């Protein structure tokens, strides 16, 4: 087991697609309530790292322990573990054949978390929280990108996770909609949610992250508080990357 305080414990994580090794041995510990932002150039393995945390991608070697569950243990019920981990995708992945409300209610109802009426009440409350109470009966196609992403966040929250993973949640959005989504994530951070946020929004990372991890070529190159990493990057690759994006 990991140290008692770790909510997520990653040891020697390697991941290959065929002959292509994408993650080359990652060690990351994340404490309960911690907000960790992951930055790095495109193709460095950030998404793959995130997808290994809820095992959407198979783990080639190493261990990933989330909430005390060892994901490499074949006897672990992944469906149960995943209910503790919400995930938000760059392209929203809302279910287009359902209304907004049905999108949010689907998992609680299918997983038999109480009655349908309860699920509905929870869903409406979540919609209010992300500022979309009036869109309950809309179809995803009728929403703007920012609204879609806020619905997607509400959908993940509906199963009451204690970890949230964000994979470039604002990258597909028009600039004027980035703010509304970041605000929702900011609120979650303030409530003490454990979060791993892959992002290109350096200002946001600096503001909400407890810790920033810089990845390149499948490795963690450097990590530290926002002040350390942005203010005084140690590694030449980090300096190089930051000089391009800041």
């Amino acid at each position, binding site marked *: 087991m990991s140290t008692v305080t770790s909510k997520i414990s990653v040891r020697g994580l390697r991941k290959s697609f065929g002959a292509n090794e994408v993650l080359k041995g990652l060690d990351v510990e994340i404490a309960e309530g911690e907000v960790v932002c992951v930055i790095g150039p495109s193709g460095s393995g950030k998404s793959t790292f995130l997808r290994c945390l809820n095992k959407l991608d198979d783990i080639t070697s190493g261990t990933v322990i989330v909430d005390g569950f060892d994901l490499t243990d074949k006897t672990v019920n992944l469906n149960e573990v995943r*209910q503790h981990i919400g995930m938000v995708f760059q392209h929203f*992945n809302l279910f287009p054949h359902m209304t907004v409300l049905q999108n949010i209610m*689907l*998992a609680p109802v299918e*997983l038999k978390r109480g009655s349908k009426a309860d699920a509905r009440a929870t869903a409406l409350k979540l919609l209010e929280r992300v500022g979309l109470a009036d869109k309950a009966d809309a179809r995803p196609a009728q929403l703007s990108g920012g609204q879609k992403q806020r619905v*997607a966040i509400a959908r993940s929250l509906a199963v009451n996770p204690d970890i949230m993973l964000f994979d470039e949640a604002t990258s597909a959005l028009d600039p004027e909609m980035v703010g509304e989504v970041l605000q929702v994530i900011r609120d979650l951070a303030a409530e003490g949610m454990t979060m791993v946020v892959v992002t290109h929004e350096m200002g946001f990372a600096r503001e909400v992250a407890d810790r920033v991890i810089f990845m390149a070529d499948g490795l963690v190159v450097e990590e530290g508080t926002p002040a350390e990493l942005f203010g005084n990057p140690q590694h030449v690759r980090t300096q190089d990357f930051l000089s391009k994006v800041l």
Partner: protein
Amino acid sequence: MRKIHHSRAGKFALAATALVALAGGFVGVGAAAASTVSADTTGETYVIGTDTTFAPFEYREDGELTGIDMDLVRDIAASQGFSVEIKSLGFDAALQALQSNQVDGVIAGMSITDERQLIFDFSDPYFDSGVQMAVAEDNAEITGYDDLAGETVVAKRGSEGETFANSISAEYGFTVKALADSATMYDDVKAGNSVAVFDDYPVLAYGINQNNGLKSVTEKEQGSSYGFAVNKGQNPELLAAFNTGLAELKAGGEYQDILDKYLDAPAASSDTSFFGLLADSMPALMKGLGLTLLATGLSILIALVLGVLFGFFTVSESRILRGISTIYVSIFRGTPLLVQAFFFYFGLPQLTGQSIDVLTAGVLTLSLNAGAYMTEIVRGGIQSVDAGQTEAGRSLGLGYVTTMRRVVLPQAVKIMTPSFINQFVMTLKDTSLLAVIGFAELTYQGQQIYASNFRTGETLLIVAALYFIVINLLTMLSNKLDKRFNK
């Protein structure tokens, strides 16, 4: 064998109750086999195969099978106290059915030849036939075999006419083409694809009397005799009864009455207008359409189940399941439907010894074939749903099945529906191929009609119109349902 053995069933039951079930079964079967030789045919029902289109020996009038063969076999059955169930299969198909014991006997204007005597047992001859040549009515050039040099003639596949034509083709320098039935051959000559047809003289004479557009210019050749056949060593009691009955009919004069009825004065069709044909043919065509729809409906339902099952196999993570489904799809997409139909109806019974009725064989063929295409439709539909949808479902903690059922399939079905409708129409049209194994669907009924009235063009127009109307109605209905449920 497809006889209904009343007496044997009784013996079987007696033996089975007297002894242990299994041992009793063997004794019952043994007793039944031993009794065949001496048993008489009283009370038995025999399945008799025949040609579809061999007027005046067998053809349909107002939907009913009639002709010299039919009258003979029915009169003999009546006099000898057994029943017959006639299966109008086509000549080739009837012989294959006899070999695979799908039928008990065949009467199909079949010449008794040395070759056939190797595999079948023949009755006493019941008709002395002969081959005659005919040409188009307006053909003045061909007046004898000498004029055939360099030309193509047509004869019925596997018939005496073909044998005779082949025997003189080198001498007179013509080519012989084989077709499956008389009506097609006559149309071939009238269309000018062949200059002459060699056919059995009674058939030809009957056709000419029906104004089929041909004329004979040479004398009839001395030919062989027609006989009723059973499979080698099978149903000896049926053969004996046929011979007895035939002798009785000849002695009583009924035999000559039957010949006169068909060969002396063939009755011309009652109403020669198009609407007369339409009215006359409608009852038979409607019966055929019913069977077409039945076979289509059953096949599509089974194909849907197969398609969903194997479609899921193709997207599964198991290499074995994917392999099974790949093999299934490639077999049924990689072989012609017609070959599949022949295989299930004629081949399978020979391999398994288990006879199969024509509807079952037809539905089996169509559903397995359509199932392969459905599999591809289902695979395509599932794979066309963005992978992000599955990931979203799974990341919420939903299982594979739930994710499929609630997230992927509803979207896939919407994508698949037009292809499903298309496959439905394809399968409906494919049922027409089952005519070759004697399944009495719409095309088959049409063939039956023009085989006896020689009005090929008009009859096929009616048949095509019926297909067209039904297919377009069903397509409209399907599209309406699609719009309603897949908004």
